[in-house]
């Protein structure tokens, strides 16, 4: 091409820029006086009815720690963004937390669909952003290759299903009954279905699955009517969010079927306070069986509950104390221990290593052990079984004593009776590890 030479005189080399690598900068979100943490969770919308207390309860605990010297002199600043429990919004808000707010780590993110999308969108793995104590039981987050910075806190749905399966098998009044499962048709429910298979439990008919938010009152009534044809007092396991549990229980009220079933409600959908707030009658929840890895949030004899209640009263005034607040403060306390374990020279890599090395020894309100290690991102791995009373208190089933079983998410091994004894709460609820 004859004319190329005319312009090719523009020197390529002249436009080249030699660059040098910048000196390694400190991780974002940490100064000598502050640690910035981020939380994406629903603060508005219908999901906020169940989980809306999470950010303020975590902040309350951090404020309490800040008032008592912080973590090695650094105050914790929690930046909470509202994702409405929507995947797209969770991705946006988590990205905002990482890129705009420059948080050091994420804490307490909530939801499977939301966090799956958020984790990828915000490039948490690439940026090595610690992703602490995620509030979902989806066992897939225990994949260290895919989620190298994530630490779960809740036992998996599969673990829960295996332990429910054992509970049914071990309970003479339940074992001979027909059994049914109504579950969310996503990773939540599928994890549960897989857990029942691993636990050797076969339901009388194939599980009734529905998409999240897709179980209307009419559908709930239809499902219950169909299942009520079974003789006796069938076991009906519900693995869904609390609003769906409420829809089903209210449908049972309408159909006068509340006593037809032995209700077993999964931990995610079994918060009594929320059920009552959503309009379920106290007489309906009286007798509902549920699994938990925590003490009951109304059990003031529990040292963790009582300490967290005090903190909630002072730093989160006007907010009633329930399972969500308990869970939030517990995760906040785990976070403080993790930050302390990472030492004064705080780095993201150091924080992740600290949890891997020492996380299983952290003090916690949970009655099941924590399972963090270099190979495991599993938090709690066990449940005890209880029965709600009309006040919404979860009391040990029949025996009056909590019996806790531990298990895993992947094997057919039977759940094991746990002898774990949790650590006492640090003095005044302030970790000194």
């Amino acid at each position, binding site marked *: 091409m004859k004319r190329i030479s005319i312009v090719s005189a523009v020197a390529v080399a002249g436009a080249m820029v030699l660059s040098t690598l910048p000196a390694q900068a400190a991780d974002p979100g940490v100064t000598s006086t502050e640690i910035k943490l981020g939380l994406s969770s629903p603060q508005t919308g219908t999901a906020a009815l169940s989980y809306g207390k999470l950010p303020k309860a975590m902040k309350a605990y951090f404020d309490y720690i800040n008032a008592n010297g912080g973590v090695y002199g650094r105050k914790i600043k929690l930046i909470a963004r509202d994702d409405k429990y929507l995947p797209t*919004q969770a991705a946006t808000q988590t990205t905002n937390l990482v890129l705009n707010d420059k948080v050091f780590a994420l804490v307490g993110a909530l939801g499977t669909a939301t966090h799956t999308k958020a984790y990828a969108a915000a490039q948490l793995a690439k940026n090595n952003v610690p992703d602490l104590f995620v509030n979902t039981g989806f066992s897939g987050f225990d994949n260290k290759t895919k989620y190298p910075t994530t630490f779960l806190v809740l036992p998996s749905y599969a673990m829960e299903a295996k332990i429910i399966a054992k509970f049914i098998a071990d309970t003479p009044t339940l074992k001979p009954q027909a059994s049914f499962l109504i579950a969310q048709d*996503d*990773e939540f429910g599928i994890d549960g279905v897989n857990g029942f298979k691993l636990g050797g439990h076969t339901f009388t008919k194939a599980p009734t699955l529905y998409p999240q938010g897709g179980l209307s009152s009419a559908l709930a009534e239809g499902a219950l009517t169909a299942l009520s044809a079974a003789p006796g007092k069938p076991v009906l396991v519900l693995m869904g969010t609390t609003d769906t549990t409420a829809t089903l229980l209210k449908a049972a009220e309408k159909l006068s079927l509340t006593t037809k079933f032995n209700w077993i409600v999964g931990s995610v959908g079994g918060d009594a306070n929320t059920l009552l707030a959503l309009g379920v009658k106290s007489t309906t929840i009286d007798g509902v069986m549920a699994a938990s890895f925590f003490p009951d949030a109304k059990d003031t004899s529990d040292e963790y509950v009582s300490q967290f209640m005090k903190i909630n009263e002072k730093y989160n005034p006007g907010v009633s104390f329930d399972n969500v607040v308990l869970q939030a403060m517990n995760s906040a306390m785990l976070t403080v221990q993790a930050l302390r374990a990472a030492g004064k020279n705080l780095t993201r890599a150091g924080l992740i290593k600290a949890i891997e090395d020492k996380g299983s020894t952290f003090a916690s309100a949970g009655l099941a052990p924590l399972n963090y290690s270099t190979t495991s991102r599993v938090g709690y791995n066990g449940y005890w079984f209880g029965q709600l009373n009309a006040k919404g208190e979860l009391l040990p089933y029949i025996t009056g004593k909590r019996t806790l079983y531990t298990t895993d998410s992947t094997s057919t091994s039977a759940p094991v009776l746990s002898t774990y004894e949790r650590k006492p709460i640090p003095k005044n609820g302030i970790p000194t590890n």
Partner: protein
Amino acid sequence: MKTTNLKKGLVALTTAALVATFAVVVPSAARAAEPTCSVAPLALYNVANVTTCTGVDEKGSKYEIRMPKNFNGTLFLYSHGIRKSADLPPIPVVAPTGYKVDYSAQVAPTEEVATSLLKQGFALAGAGVQAQGWNLTEQTYAALLLSQEAQMKFPKINKVVAWGNSLGALSSQALAEQYPGTVDAVGNLCLSDSGLAEITMAGDFLWGLKSFFDPTIKATGYSAGTAGYMEMLGDIQKVLGVLVALKTALAINPTSPTWPTTSTVPAAYQAIPVRSAILLLGLISGVSTQSMTYDSASGPAGASETTFGLVLSPALAVLENGAEAAILAIAANYDMEIRAGGIIYDNSKTNYATRLGDDGDTYAAALSGKTYTGVLLSILAASPRVTADPAAVARFKQMYDLQGKVTVPTINLAATADHITPPGATQHFIDLYDAQVAKTRAGVEGASQAGLVTTIWNKPSDTYSTFDADGKPVTPTVAPNGTMHCNFKTSQTLLVAKMLAASAKSGKSPSASTVKAAIKNDANLFVDPNYRAPLLKYRQ
């Protein structure tokens, strides 16, 4: 849940009969000649004393050069985005008054941008390429010839900035890579990925529409000559028919809309809300779940707020975006097949379940659950696939593919919700460049130096959907910044232009602090080396 009003949510669609008497227009060859110049104020734009030169290059492409009196030495050499390669009769939405292939020269993304740059003393040039459609080779060559012509005509030009939109950006980058030394800086606005990557995205969506909703859509393998042209027009009509049916169904019952009557999916499967099928097509093809009306986050205040954002909004966004993607796929397939002499699009080995990936979990609720998702995927798995013509693909691949060989400061501006050139196209270019830099660090001669590429991302506001007092979604009269294709504000384009001019002059990329200072007042722009956009599905 309130009934969704989609009258504004989708551009009005009708199935009015198409006039079917058009023939393919073949541009006449033009002879290279000296440009004709005239000096006059551009009164319309209040720019004094601009010399405007027009001409036709040796390949027949029209060109235009605008030279202001207060010329500062830098020429902005613009390459326009893709244009349709065939005339169209009046078709609602697609070409309401008909379409004649546009061979006109274009010197800047918009006349507003052109005016501002001229006032600042920059010269402008741009071609109207003699062959439209996916004309990467022709457009790159036209830009090369125009650059030379402009410098011969105006020897005072001492710096050349190549920039373009979409396919034009691909052409600008190709120009810089293929002919190093030709330009001093490159601006890639809404950079397109390669033809195969782009046709895979649009083609998958179109093939999905065919599989779910109307198997008589041809989609690929258009016949030669007039017969093929008629087939292409027929496809447009059928796709519009499907879109109208979907729009109508969603307007009547957004929660459980019915399937189009043209669908041959078994009736039992049509119990699945058709909105889930629409969303699935968006997710497997990579069409954005954020559109000008729907942000996949907001809902009308009240009980259905969360449900709308969770279940409806992503599907509605895909439908709004996908309408354009499907029409583009028809036009592009038609053009590319003529160009290459056979079928280019290929999904013979595509595993759509793998394609869906984690999105199947993320959007489980909107997809009506894992069970129904499996059913929808099984329908696609059983649908007849398309196998490309290897010889045609080989010919098509003779077009230049970006290598990431960057020798001059280069600035990307890419929108995170662009539904035609998704941000993954720019990410792919960044990856190519990073690989070149890694080669340099490994001692390979001739690879790229570090620090030459700057990327500015353009994102929509966190939430932007609005609803009227009745809770109905309202389509904005102006598309929210960060949504739609190449929908940049004039200020954003000029901001990039200013940095490009400075970079061309200095030979250096703008510093991070310079870029941050430049964008600090624009909440829709951000730069962050740690941000990574997902690649197009073709590359995943």
